[in-house]
């Protein structure tokens, strides 16, 4: 029982981090970044390359991955989203194509097989009769710190509030003098950074492979649909719901039915409350 | 005889803002009423509620005696009410004729497949609102604002309504174009079409309506013959500035 609670909390924290990066783009930029999972995958490989192959300290690898994620985000925004001028369909398709291109690129450089990442922080800790690796614990703690930092950023800083304004009403914000382009760039940069950090953690939680970007993308999707957009708190809550649901179904029912209840939840929410459980609330 | 349109105690609140504040009026068959008032008075919001684009906070909307609040927009259109939009929303990649074609379509998939478009009727409608033969194969990006409003009018007529809600059909039109639309409206009036017309162009509006309703801050401030509403004191101060 304790094991379930602990694993649930750990997983949910990570899921929250993954989801927030995705939600941010959808909420502020109003477009679907289907290559979001690619941040996760590419960041994992970057970390692998720098920290495991080149031997740099893990923190450096992590930060490098994060910065690269930001750059990817900025590039994506400037090269793909901006020229397409908010044509949803075009952005959806382009980002999907991009995701597959990135997957193939990674295969070209690193090969097809899955790789195991060495833990960022080695060692385990025992809580009750549950064994928790420091690695995963650190990931969860870091995720929470980042999320709290993000929340404060959104609420307290000028730019953060501008982002909130754009997510509610882009036209109104622009009339009030907000530079939409700059806000979008910052949002994509942050999203890339979040995705990358989440990617390194996720890779160390599972394993590194060129196709690993699909699963977290689906999870982020599930959290967006069930939670609705426009609320970081909502995303956090739903991340925990889904995280716990997965842990419970793995522990009590069958490991392979992991995603099934999430899907059922998506269907349920779409039928009963399409806005999502926390749709359109204050950040 | 049941009235085509009856509005009873209509209220619409957006959060703290009351856009429609207890409005009631009705239209008789063949009657044409002008709806006037300053910007933001709530005229378009009334249209949106009649068409079902907004759900009213409270109040009744009846079309030919039946409550329509539960019906979808297409269902209401099939009952006979149709509107134009202040900001035209044509189908961007279709020609003028194809735009009208969509309005003419029956809401039956079988009929859509088995029956071809009635191109003669499409041309007839397009010409009646003032398009020339050359314009028929143009797409919206090649049309002026005035042309786009004419297209709105043609598309609304295509749905074969018996009640037409016109939202600023004259804005951006030349004198000649206004004249043509006005003649069209008069012709439809003689065929017993019911109208509710919003327009800032009072000169163009006057000959087209039997009476008028003045709105401000979501409330009716004057109602009656066009002349009496125009000379009403409240209307003059709030809207006409005299």
């Amino acid at each position, binding site marked *: 029982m304790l094991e379930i609670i602990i694993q649930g909390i750990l997983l949910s924290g990570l899921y929250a981090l993954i989801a927030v990066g995705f939600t941010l783009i959808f909420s502020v930029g109003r477009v679907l970044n289907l290559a979001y999972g690619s941040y996760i995958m590419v960041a994992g490989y970057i970390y692998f390359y720098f920290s495991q192959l080149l031997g740099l300290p893990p923190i450096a690898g992590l930060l490098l991955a994060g910065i690269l994620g930001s750059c990817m985000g900025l590039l994506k925004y400037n090269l793909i989203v901006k020229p397409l001028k908010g044509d949803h369909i075009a952005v959806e398709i382009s980002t999907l194509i991009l995701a597959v291109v990135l997957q193939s690129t990674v295969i070209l450089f690193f090969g097809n097989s899955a790789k195991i990442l060495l833990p960022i922080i080695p060692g385990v800790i025992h809580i009750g009769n549950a064994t928790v690796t420091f690695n995963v614990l650190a990931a969860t703690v870091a995720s929470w710190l980042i999320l709290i930092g993000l929340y404060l950023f959104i609420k307290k800083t000028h730019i953060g509030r501008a982002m909130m304004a754009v997510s509610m009403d882009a036209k109104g914000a622009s009339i009030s003098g907000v530079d939409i382009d700059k806000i979008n760039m910052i949002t994509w940069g942050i999203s890339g950074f979040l995705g990358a950090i989440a990617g390194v953690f996720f890779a160390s939680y599972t394993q590194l492979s060129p196709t690993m970007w699909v699963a977290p993308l689906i999870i982020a999707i599930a959290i967006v649909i069930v939670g609705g957009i426009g609320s970081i708190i909502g995303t956090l809550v739903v991340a925990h719901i889904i995280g716990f649901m997965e842990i419970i179904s793995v522990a009590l029912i069958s490991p392979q039915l992991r995603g099934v209840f999430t899907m059922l939840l998506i269907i349920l929410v779409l039928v009963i409350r399409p806005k999502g459980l926390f749709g359109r609330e204050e950040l | 005889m049941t009235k085509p349109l009856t509005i009873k105690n209509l209220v619409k609140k957006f959060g703290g803002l009351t856009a429609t504040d207890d409005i009631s009026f009705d239209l008789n068959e063949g009657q044409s009423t002008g709806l006037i008032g300053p910007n933001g008075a709530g005229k378009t919001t009334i249209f949106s509620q009649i068409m079902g684009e907004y759900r009213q906070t409270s109040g009744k909307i009846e079309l030919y005696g039946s409550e329509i609040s539960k019906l979808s927009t297409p269902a209401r259109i099939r009952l006979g009410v149709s509107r134009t939009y202040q900001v035209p929303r044509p189908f961007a*990649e279709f020609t003028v004729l194809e735009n009208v074609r969509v309005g003419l379509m029956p809401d039956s*998939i079988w009929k859509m497949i088995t029956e071809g478009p009635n191109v003669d009727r499409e041309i007839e409608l397009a010409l009646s609102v003032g398009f020339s033969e050359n314009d028929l194969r143009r797409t919206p990006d090649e049309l002026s604002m005035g042309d786009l409003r004419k297209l709105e009018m043609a598309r609304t007529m295509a749905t074969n309504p018996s009640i037409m809600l016109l939202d600023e059909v004259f804005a951006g039109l030349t004198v000649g174009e206004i004249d043509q639309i006005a003649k069209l409206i008069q012709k439809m009036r003689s065929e017993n079409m019911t109208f509710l017309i919003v327009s800032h162009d009072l000169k163009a509006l006057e000959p087209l309506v039997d009476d008028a309703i003045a709105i401000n801050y979501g409330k009716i401030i004057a109602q009656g013959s066009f002349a009496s509403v125009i000379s009403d004191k409240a209307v003059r101060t709030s809207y006409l500035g005299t």
Partner: protein
Amino acid sequence: MGLGLRWYHFVLWAGFIAIMALMPEFVSKGTLRTIIFANFLAIFAISWDVLSGRTGYISFGHPFLIGIGAYTTAILTKRFDVPVEYAIPTAVIMTMVGGTIMFLPALRIKGSYFALVSLAFMELIYQLVQVIRPDLTGGTRGMSGLVTLTRGAVNGYYLSVTLMIIVALCMWLLMRTRLGTALSAIGMNEESVKGSGLSPTKLKLFAFMTSAFVAGLGGAFYVHYLGSIAPRALFDINFVFTIIVATLIGGASTIVGPMFGAFFLTFLLEYLRPYLPGAERYLIYGIIALLLYMYQPKGLYHIVMTQLDRFKKRADDD
């Protein structure tokens, strides 16, 4: 029906059919096998185009539909000894029913949500198929030794090409009716469609069921051509990608566009195979697809049509 058919439509279709019919005379067995694959890809691309190409409701989960058709007929013929003539129609019906039930909630929602949900569902069925009743579905490894309808490349070719041409013709004609106009209108401005007195939900549902019909048909026949079914190849994001790119390169919403896009893509893949044997090929045509799509989202069909228009104008002016 107002199809607006002109003489050149007849000529082009007749010519196309003739070429396809005579193809085995001109090419090797190996090339025939490639064309068979292209035929099936064309069917899947057309199926995608009917829904997503027109209405703008991008489905990233088409393998989900294809999979239902494929697995239904595979399970019926292999596990329950149902004759193929009954298994295939049943598979098609199952695809339409099963798919509709799962997608109905999503169709009522905005297009972007639909895209997300379709992707999620594809992953779902991938997981389910491996886990639920692996005795029926063959689990992770899938099934082999299924009934094949034809033997040999030539027969397989004729079956696939006949199927493809029938599907392409029917869908092409269907989209030329006012239904096609209505579906395109949804893609342009769904609110305006409502304002024209049409109910978009009914239209989307019809488009979806038609798409499911074709997908199920294609999936069922494909499985009986291959004689096997493997979930990892079927529910792969690369497969989604291939279908979508084929449609886009050819030209979405045109039906013939996706058909030619499928051929173009298949042969490009084959050409690249000796140089880039693995998944790296997707890199090349992913980049090509991305560049082409950003330059001209309407695809090759549009590029060809605009050139023809210019040609016609010049001819008229002379």
